[in-house]
């Protein structure tokens, strides 16, 4: 096989995968928005279960990660701002960069690793043990019963986790600012919100909406397309995490670009 053939083949394969993911996405939207008008609702219980798993059970790790990122950002920011004699503005630096950028991306990566991997592994196991086929032969559509609840849960919980993470991250910065940089708590808090506008928060939340769709679709796609027993489940899980990491970063670059250029 020469190099052109290799490139050609992998391009075709990637193209087919993108097509399949889009098809899955539109089917999900159909079951979410149109099927209910035909009397086919999504079980509230399944959505609730998934919200507990994706949201509630991710809170602790989000706390942990964002708190320490807040601390690191504060120290790093103070180190650089000190040279400009502007250490006081460390709070603004942290609040804006966390809400717009670091919070949504970092939390999406954490959730892709925790929730996305679990979804791919669970659906993959169901696929190789004929459970997906069993659902289908019982006239229970796998997209309706498995994909939609996970999609919806991530769509609601990832932005919620992002709001929590933003606050915790700012608190991490506050701890460094007050106890290490000796900025008075009141001053720190007022600087924190001095340059933070609603648009920053909205930008961050919009990003996390998009990331939630990416995580859910990629994980469900890899899960439902698993083949080859236990080894295949492992492969799907890895692929799901790796490809959602790449897509999250890529989508972030594109979205940041759009927000940046549309505001100048």
């Amino acid at each position, binding site marked *: 096989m020469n190099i052109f053939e290799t490139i050609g083949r992998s391009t075709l394969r990637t193209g087919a995968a993108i097509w399949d993911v889009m098809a899955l996405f539109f089917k999900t939207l159909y079951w979410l928005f149109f099927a209910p008008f035909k009397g086919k609702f999504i079980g509230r219980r399944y959505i609730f279960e998934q919200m507990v798993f994706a949201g509630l059970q991710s809170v602790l790790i989000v706390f942990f990660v964002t708190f320490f990122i807040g601390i690191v950002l504060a120290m790093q920011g103070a180190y650089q701002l000190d040279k400009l004699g502007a250490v006081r503005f460390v709070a603004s630096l942290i609040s804006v960069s966390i809400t717009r950028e670091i919070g949504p991306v970092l939390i999406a990566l954490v959730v892709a690793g925790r929730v996305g991997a679990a979804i791919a592994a669970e659906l993959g*196991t*169901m696929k190789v*043990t*004929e*459970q997906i*086929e*069993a*659902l*289908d*032969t*019982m*006239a*229970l559509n796998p997209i309706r019963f498995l994909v939609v609840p996970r999609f919806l849960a991530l769509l609601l919980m990832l932005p919620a986790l992002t709001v929590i993470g933003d606050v915790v991250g700012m608190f991490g910065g506050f701890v460094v600012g007050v106890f290490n940089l000796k900025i008075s708590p009141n001053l720190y808090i007022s600087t924190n919100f001095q340059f933070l506008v609603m648009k920053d928060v909205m930008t961050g939340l919009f990003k996390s909406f998009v990331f939630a769709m990416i995580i859910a679709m990629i994980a469900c796609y890899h899960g439902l397309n698993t083949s080859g027993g236990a080894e295949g489940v492992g492969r799907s899980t890895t692929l799901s995490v790796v490809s959602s990491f790449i897509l999250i970063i890529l989508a972030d670059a594109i979205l940041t670009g759009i927000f940046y250029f549309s505001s100048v």
Partner: protein
Amino acid sequence: MAEEKEVVIKIENLVKEFGGRRVLDGINLEIYKGESFVIMGGSGCGKSTILRHIIGGLRPDSGKVYLFGEDISTAGDDKMDGFKKRFGMLFQSSALFDSLTVEENISLPLREHTKLDEHIIKIMVKMKLELVGLHGFGHLYPSQLSGGMKKRVGLARAIALDPEIIFYDEPSAGLDPVVTAVIDKLIVDLSEKLSITSVIVTHDMNSVFRIADRIAMLHKGKVLEIGTKEEIQNSKNEYVKQFITGSPDGPIGFFKPDENYLQELTK
């Protein structure tokens, strides 16, 4: 028999290839209402693939599959869903939902497809469990059950909606002879008591002769012979005879001809 038999499943010239390899090569079958029809053949000869075509999981490359008198390739999703509620399937690996208890597994189709009250569903689940001899196991999870118990729960789930047809994919695979006999008896009971049409895929000869009214022998993607149990037992076909007796010598060979082997070695 003079009486007119109603055909519930009809397969015409079914052809299916996977990656250029022809797995089904012109299958023709008719399955009558109320009978127990066995499809037998060696591993990998395409038995499960035939079932997947009948239940709508795979589309034929060419040929037609008729279910309840209708061509399923032209049936839309809603119509197919209607068919799916009229048959049940017992999977080779039981395919119970790991995250649900035995009771929830069986009640899932009832809950989603009927408007029955919760307490009526509970009663129906108990009845189905009783039928497969697993009364009182409803609260367990599939991981807490043995292989034979899983098969029986799978069967209880398959009959939850009182289907007209049940498909069994290797019901005795991986079970000991006694449990196999129990499952076989259940299959016979269900078809006799509830006059359900049964389509059973298996390579276990003991089961075949316990269950079958009629048998089709499959080999290399073709139907070699179809007949009643007696006709198959007295078959003159060398392939069928070898399969029934389970002899290593005969036309169903596992060894390559000598010349090819030599060529391959020296290539």
